[in-house]
């Protein structure tokens, strides 16, 4: 059966979550030289319809990124017990559904720590699209990490807008980036999909550091990109596709945190010169502690609040 991927409302090319999912599907296609199907829905009412269509056409597994899919998947997965489904960022408890969760807070914690270590001004920034639990989880992890590395650090937090269109508004993001720089921030973490590039650009233009999100964006502004908080949605999609192909698809919950390689602070040749050995050492210490459970990074989504700010 041909695997299928249905994107969330933001669409295939949100430069973030959905795009990562698409990258995973592409990786699968390239690796196996096999086709896959994908679809963008236009409205929420089409979710069940899309799932059903693929299921009827014999696709398996059908992978859907996004919490909003939980309800439609639980309906359609029961109608098609022989089809495999995978949902990212939500749990659907059915024998033919794999649920993949990420611990964004852990990855954000690491980049927050790095930011605090790098900062000379004692002020760092966080730019995100709008007040949204998932995005708040990024921010909350970031602040926790930063405070852990430097208790006196000040974190500026700004929202670009109040709805999904904020993910496209690079200009406001850029203006926010500049404003944070002007207020003293010298590292800015932009977790805002496509709009984030605006803030990263502002950081680069000002000669300070930016931190990318979701995919590895270190290549964007070499010398000015401290790191990226990578969330491997692509791996989740690739795994689901590949497991089905290899005949070992499993249902149940998969939580991809730091330990599982689901999130990380990207290190590559672009940012190597910026990361000193001491920074790396502190980082490794945090990683170990998180993996060992000594540090538990609070997840904003668990109670819709953040212990630090």
């Amino acid at each position, binding site marked *: 059966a041909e695997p299928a991927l249905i994107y969330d409302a933001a669409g295939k090319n949100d430069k973030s979550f959905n795009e990562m999912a698409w990258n995973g599907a592409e990786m699968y296609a390239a690796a196996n030289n096999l086709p896959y199907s994908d679809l963008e829905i236009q409205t929420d009412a089409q979710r069940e319809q899309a799932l059903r269509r693929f299921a009827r056409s014999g696709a398996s597994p059908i992978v859907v990124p996004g919490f909003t899919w939980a309800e439609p998947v639980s309906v359609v997965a029961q109608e098609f017990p022989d089809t495999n489904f995978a949902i990212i960022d939500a749990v659907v408890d059915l024998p033919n559904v794999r649920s993949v969760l990420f611990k964004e807070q852990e990855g954000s914690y690491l980049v927050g720590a790095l930011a605090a270590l790098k900062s000379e001004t004692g002020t760092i920034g966080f730019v995100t699209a709008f007040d949204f*639990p998932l995005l708040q989880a990024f921010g909350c992890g970031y602040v926790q990490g930063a405070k852990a590395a430097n208790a006196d650090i000040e974190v500026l937090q700004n929202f670009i807008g109040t709805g999904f269109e904020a993910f496209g508004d690079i200009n406001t993001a850029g203006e926010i980036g500049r404003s944070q720089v002007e207020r003293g921030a010298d590292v800015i973490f932009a977790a805002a999909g496509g709009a984030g590039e605006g803030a990263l650009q502002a950081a680069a233009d000002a000669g300070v550091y930016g931190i990318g999100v979701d995919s590895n964006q270190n290549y964007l502004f070499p010398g000015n990109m401290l790191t990226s908080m990578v969330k491997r949605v692509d791996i989740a999609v690739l795994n689901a596709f590949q497991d089905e192909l290899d005949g070992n698809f499993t249902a149940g919950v998969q939580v991809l945190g730091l330990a599982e390689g689901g999130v990380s602070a990207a290190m590559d040749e672009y940012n190597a010169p910026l990361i000193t050995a001491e920074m790396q050492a502190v980082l490794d210490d945090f990683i170990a502690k998180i993996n060992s459970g000594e540090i538990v990074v609070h997840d904003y989504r668990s109670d819709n609040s953040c212990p630090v700010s």
Partner: protein
Amino acid sequence: MSTHKPLPRWVDIALMPALNVALAFVVGGLAVAAVGEDPFRAMQVLIFGAFGYGEGWGFTLHFATSFVFTGLAVAVAYHAGLFNIGGEGQAYVAGLGAIMVALWLDQTHWVFVLVGSTFAAMTFGAIWAMIPGYLQAKRGSHIVITTIMFNFIASAFMSYMLAQVITRPGANAETETIAETGRLPLMSDFLPVFTFSPLNITFFIGILSLIFVYVLIWHTKLGYQIRTLGANPEAARYAGISAVAIIIIVMAISGALAGLMAVNEAVGVQKRLGVGYVQGFGFVGIAVAFMGRAHPIGIALAALLFGALYQGGQELAFVMPSVSSDLVVVIQALVILFTGAMSEMFKPVLLRLFNRASGEPETVGD
């Protein structure tokens, strides 16, 4: 200009729009051909997807229902000479009322949910539209500016409500889900032909709204006053019609109609309210209202056309993966352009054709 008979009515209301839609598809077809797909097959898929089978019909009608609400909202205000660009925000805020009542009553019976959330949606939508109405009537604040601003304010307000107030903790800013007992019946519960489509009982509210607006505008004294104010405010003053009262009432009705979209979409289908649930349907309503010439029958037809484009477009994207949802938006834009803004394009040609056909000698043109 030559001496001529006017066009037969059926040409005006059926043939010309059909030609315009056809032209939109021709141009859209070029784009489809550009991505290497067969435009004729694409059109076939689109039409079949929208009307070819029960489920397709169900989706088409479901979307059309939402467009009827937002379209009527624009049309009613337009009859009073007011351009309400705020359907988007009104429907958004109405969602809050609808979902709060639905969540409150969802342990009882769907009838209570339907009645309660309909009432709440209309009330919230009406209030959100009445403020710009009041400001226009009493303070002279231009309704176009205020409704645009109120769209942005609604977005911020709802973002706060959904992320911080009536939210459920989790990855998305959204409310709890309506319990099974309170869910609105789907049309497929009675008519299996609609199979899995989201078409629900709100469809009938849509029909009632169309009738309501028709009666209101053309068969009531209030409607007469609304039209008088819209067509000639000075004559309304002469007639002793209170502009202040009419403007506020009309905006309330307009907002209430826009608000009904919440019952169809949020309560009826998504069963919860999330950020941005209106999905631009408020703006589609503007096109629907004007393409339907602000008349309920026209609006019903235009809404059906848009419903078909949404559903058929989805089918198209499914069957032809290279035709992305963006291309479908392009096709929609072309339909709006050709059938809405350039609707008279074929008129001169048709006039000439029909006058020749009716055997009338043409006099010198200019």
